[in-house]
């Protein structure tokens, strides 16, 4: 059924979902720190709004709770936390150069198509008129992951992580009117703790690496590490012909 013959609320849902998807794209393209954080907050806001709308449409009061959770976490707490941290680590002005942004965005588009293709097989279950927003939620999640894959800065990675979370939340909301309460609370709690830990880690990282550029972390690399020494190989069956076995 097309958008035209849906109720206003549903149209609004679809609209906001689309906007949320758009915000992920912005995050993908946004190199500077502060705007990134704000965009993330915006995305949280949109999702919260969507859950409120769904709650109204589907008469599921408990969705208000999850909307509230989303709002407090994704719009207030975490962005504020990140903001404070980046001010303290005075990196609010630094920006990172994204290599081949166009390619990245095209990749994002491809991901959206892919997630639509994936969602195709399952949407028929949902009774909702706005079922295709499931595809959007998957897309948001994957885009978050893409963000983590390409961004060098730890903060960016955290944001990517969080937007994955929000994508999942979104999926829960639009597909099944949210999860059971206990689960929602647990998840929220975990995310909160995670955010705080991330904060702690920023300092550790800064102290031990001097920057938050996780791209430089390769002390534990094995790729350019030689094989164990020859005499170690001497103990191994390829130790080559060895002198006849008389000890001494």
């Amino acid at each position, binding site marked *: 059924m097309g958008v035209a013959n849906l109720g206003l609320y549903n149209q609004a849902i679809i609209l906001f979902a689309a906007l949320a998807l758009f915000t992920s794209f912005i995050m993908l393209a946004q190199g500077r720190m502060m705007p990134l954080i704000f965009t993330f907050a915006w995305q949280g806001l949109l999702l919260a709004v969507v859950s409120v709308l769904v709650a109204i449409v589907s008469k599921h009061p408990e969705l208000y709770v999850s909307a509230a959770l989303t709002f407090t976490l994704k719009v207030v707490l975490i962005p504020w936390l990140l903001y404070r941290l980046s001010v303290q680590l005075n990196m609010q002005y630094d920006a990172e150069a994204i290599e081949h942004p166009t390619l990245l965005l095209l990749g994002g588009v491809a991901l959206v198509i892919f997630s639509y293709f994936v969602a195709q097989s399952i949407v028929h*279950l949902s009774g909702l008129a706005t079922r295709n927003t499931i595809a959007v939620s998957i897309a948001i999640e994957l885009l978050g992951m893409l963000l983590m894959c390409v961004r060098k800065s730890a903060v960016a990675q955290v944001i990517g992580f969080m937007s994955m979370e929000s994508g999942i939340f979104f999926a829960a909301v639009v597909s099944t*009117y949210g*999860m059971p309460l206990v689960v929602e609370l647990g998840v929220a709690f*975990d995310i909160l703790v995670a955010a705080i830990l991330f904060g702690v880690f920023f300092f550790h990282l800064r102290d031990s690496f001097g920057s938050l550029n996780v791209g430089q972390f390769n002390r534990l690399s094995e790729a350019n590490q030689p094989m164990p020494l020859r005499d170690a190989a001497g103990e191994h069956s390829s130790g080559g012909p060895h002198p006849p076995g008389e000890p001494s």
Partner: protein
Amino acid sequence: MTLLEVTLLVPLLGGLLLAVVGHRPVAGWINVAVGVVTFGAALVMALEVFARGPQLSGGRMFYIDAFNVYLVVLTAFVGLTTSIFSRPYMRHEVERGRVTDRRLRLYHSMYQCFLFSMLLALSTNNLGVLWVAMELATLTTVLLVSLYRTPEAIEAAWKYFILCGVGIAQALFGTVLIYFAAENKLGADRDDTLLWTVLHGSAGANLDPAVITLAFVFLLVGYGTKVGLVPLHNWLPDAHSEGPTPMSAVLSGLLLNVALYALVRVKMLVDASLHTNLAGHLMMGFGLLSFTVAGLFLHRQHDVKRMFSYSSIEHMGLITFGFGMGGALATFGALLHMTVHSLTKSAIFITVGHACQLAGTQRIDQIRGLIRTQPAIGWGLLIGTVAIAGFPPFGVFISEFLLLMATMKSWPWLTIPLLVGFGVAFAGLFRHMQRMVFGEPPPKQKPVEANMLPVVVHLLLVLLLGLAIPGFLSRWFEQATVLISGASPL
């Protein structure tokens, strides 16, 4: 209050208590005491379950059946023995000044919280809570990995955090999808729809295949990351090698098991609703890949703890392969292998911890002549390695024997890669082992204070399992096997 509540609450309260007094000398003992209580409760509870069969408790919040009860006992037990080991170990670390009081407090409290989260993950009846507990396990161990605050430790912890976080997120998505599938089959009382008992009951059979398949993919990638399946394993060696050794012991001894437990639970759901062997095949592929790749990695290690973490990946791969193969024999073997692997591997890590303190380094090429300097440690390491390499009369051999037999029965040609894998892994372990254990020790290498009791106990248990599996234990395994594979090996 029921035994289960004791089992869960004691570690939690212990963690909180230790958060306050964790830096005192007595903390080590408190840690042990908590472990003892937990283990006792778990054991009694296990006997109850063994007597009366599966039981629901806490308003259907918790479900204990043959499968998870023995994992609960195992977790409590290894937690206990490791805490016994960690007392002298951490003291030595404090003396070497690698750990301050604050971090010692953190260590002790996080240790117990970690145990709590794993016990929760095992005993819960709710897939959502299972996920929450798994995430909690990650969060509690992240700070343990970075305990030493060296750049390597921080880096390892960060990778651990990010990779497991992402993985776990996928698992959450999978859970959501399962909920989605379940919810529109049995839309009524929404809070029950994630309950394992409900899903795996009659309702589970007719969940929508498409959604379940999708869900399984997300869950496999998610929990598979924590199991350490190649190519999602990259966090594991770093975390094991950089964290304090007791933590490595519980990580590879327990956490991997718990993650695998979650995976198997999900597989049971999927098999019930899918009626194809898709899940099994995916797990077999993953398992075999991890098994072989990890075996190769063993050869190129310079760091002893890192090496053994790869061996953990290898064995997890084998177990996953076994569960994926399904069938009574394979499942029994996999369950047995879970047990003996976690016992043996934690014992090895305990010994390795002492060995590293002895030699003052983790670098393989600088550890020498252990068997001369401190025979207890040398022999412990040697016998542990022999056991983990799958030599009889140790239990690992029995489970590998069963797995090979099962493979020969259903997938004869897959025995060849398994064979090669075993050979390669064995060579990788021993070429390093011999140089550390044998030979002349460096001039001024002194024995250290070591408590080898846990090692002895673990290895004796493994030996016992190798020679004869006690009746009740075998019946547990059998019940679990029936539960998972639907058939009995007997």
